[in-house]
């Protein structure tokens, strides 16, 4: 009897605790949503509403002025591809490649920044997935000289903050004539060894017999990789793709150091430079922030299931 009472009390307590925790979590969730709400509404507020010491919770009327200011501030071609533009002297002859520039129509710079950011995130995602899958496969399934050392190097380099190598990297990029190009941001992302580590763990989970069987059937190494290995580690590649995409989208630091020209900026860098120019003109800053975050939030909401799956899978295997 006594025991029963005890259990009842315990059940009541745990129920109370559950309700309490739900309430607290709902409150915290609101706090987490609030900055985003503040960005989205702030982008449509007038200057007076933004400066009001008593916050305006909802814009009395949605104005476009902040977006108009943002768009009229700077302009850049939508895209430009240049080929050639260099010369070399060989055996007494001068080989020169004339410079051809194909430029898109002039648009507000913010549009170009979005194009740059998408290009950067997608390109680094694709290259990272391919190179990491190949490297991860052999690290997991092959025994070769130098494997141990290589793998330790990869593990060590993973935790390394990029700031550590910033100065040498900058000098290197300038020597390679890559400074102030989007590639200067992409290449270090691709070189970051987390992807290899992740896909190696994935590949280790694939039975060696399958790989061996394929080899015995006379398939080349490349075929073994593309036809057997790659399909098997696809979920891992998906996880890595999502990781790399978010990481490069938000890789503010590399962008800050490597990119200068207005036409080469990314959207986060663009917003940062807007904030430098307009410091407390929060209307234009919120408009820019909205422009920077809404696309990726939409992508996130659409692929939400894959995101969570990818993140979890990365952790389980990593």
């Amino acid at each position, binding site marked *: 009897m006594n025991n029963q009472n005890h259990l009842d009390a*315990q059940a009541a307590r745990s129920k109370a605790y559950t309700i309490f925790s739900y309430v607290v979590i709902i409150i915290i969730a609101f706090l987490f*949503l609030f*900055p*985003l709400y*503040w*960005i989205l509404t*702030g982008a449509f507020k007038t200057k007076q509403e*933004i400066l*009001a*010491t*008593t*916050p305006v919770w909802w814009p009395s009327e949605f104005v476009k002025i902040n977006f108009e200011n943002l768009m009229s501030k700077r302009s850049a071609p939508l895209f430009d591809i240049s080929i050639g533009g260099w010369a070399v002297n060989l055996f007494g002859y001068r080989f020169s490649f004339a410079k051809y520039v194909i430029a898109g129509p002039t648009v507000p710079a913010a549009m170009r920044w979005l194009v740059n950011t998408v290009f950067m995130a997608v390109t680094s995602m694709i290259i990272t997935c*391919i190179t990491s899958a*190949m490297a991860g*496969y*052999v*690290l997991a399934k092959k025994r*070769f000289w130098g494997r141990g050392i290589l793998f330790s190097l990869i593990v*060590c*380099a*993973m*935790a*390394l*903050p990029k*700031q*550590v*190598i*910033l*100065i*040498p*990297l900058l000098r290197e990029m300038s020597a390679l004539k890559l400074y102030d190009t989007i590639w200067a941001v992409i*290449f270090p992302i*691709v*070189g970051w*060894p987390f992807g*290899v580590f992740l896909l190696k763990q994935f590949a280790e989970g694939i039975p060696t017999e399958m790989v061996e069987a394929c080899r015995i059937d006379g398939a080349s*190494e490349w075929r073994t990789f593309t036809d057997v290995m790659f399909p098997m580690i696809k979920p891992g590649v998906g996880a890595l793709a999502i990781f790399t995409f*978010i990481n490069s989208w938000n890789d*503010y*630091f590399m962008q*800050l150091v490597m990119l200068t020209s207005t036409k080469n900026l990314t959207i*986060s860098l663009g*917003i*940062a430079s807007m904030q430098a120019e307009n410091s*407390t003109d*929060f209307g234009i*800053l*919120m408009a*820019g*922030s909205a422009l*920077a*975050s809404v696309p*990726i939030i939409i992508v996130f909401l659409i692929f939400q299931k894959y*995101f*969570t799956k990818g*993140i*979890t899978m990365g*952790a*389980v295997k*990593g």
Partner: protein
Amino acid sequence: MSNKRVVLNTKNHKLMIHETATSYLFMLPFMIFFVGFVLYPMFMCVYTSFFDATMGREDIFVGFANYVQLSKDPVFWKGLWNTLIIVLVSVPVTCAFSLWVASAISKMPVAATSAFRCIFYLPVVTGSVAVTVVWKWMFNNYYGIFNYLGNNLGLFDERINWLGDERFALGCIIMILLTTSVGQPIVLYVSALDNVDKSLVEAAEVDGATQMQAFWKIKWPQMMPTTLYILVITTINSFQCFALIQLLTSGGPNNSTMTIMYYIYYNAFKLYKYGYGNAMGVILAIIIAILSAVQFKLGQEK
């Protein structure tokens, strides 16, 4: 089986050469980027740290002078201290908070769980710059929302200059960092809690264990690998917090939010002390290597 091994042994050498060659061919694309844009700069970082390097002239070899100067630089020590505080506060808090949120929301209906998971992950996808800029507005001394709420709820009378006050600036930075770093751990913990062996928990509850006991004795050990992983990624994350510092406080007031990352950037691009900045990078890399080794050891023991 034993037969195969003998064959392998006799052909070992030849096979090894073949395997090594193909392996390196497969590694090649990655290695180009890894060596070119991670290892080589790392090597150059160590190398240049022994030089007095600045813009507009050749580097001058100075031996350990940069390191000696570093040991006497109070701002460096302050930055190191702040970096450690950020890591030591944000890592445990992130882990504990996300574990608590995860265990609460994992009991909810599926739709609610995924909605909350989404909400807590949003600051991560919003992007560091956008998040930083909006927080800067909310913390504004003159028309920020925090001062308004604080005054109206009667929490404090005077305005608080959140980012301009040594007592609060670092705390504000850590708080923003927390909002952007709990997203992933929550997702991970929710799935880890899902994967906990339910029959064990039920058995324990039948035996009269309280929820608390069931959690700590059964669920917690099973989630250990997840926790370790979260520790590692949060540590890396906290070390790398840069945009927050650069855009909100530039290391101020009075270096109270100066971190090593920002100080490296500061030395390189405001004072043009490239060699000095590199020496700092080397020290930081060593510290992180030690920390990683410790965490790795912990992971292996489990």
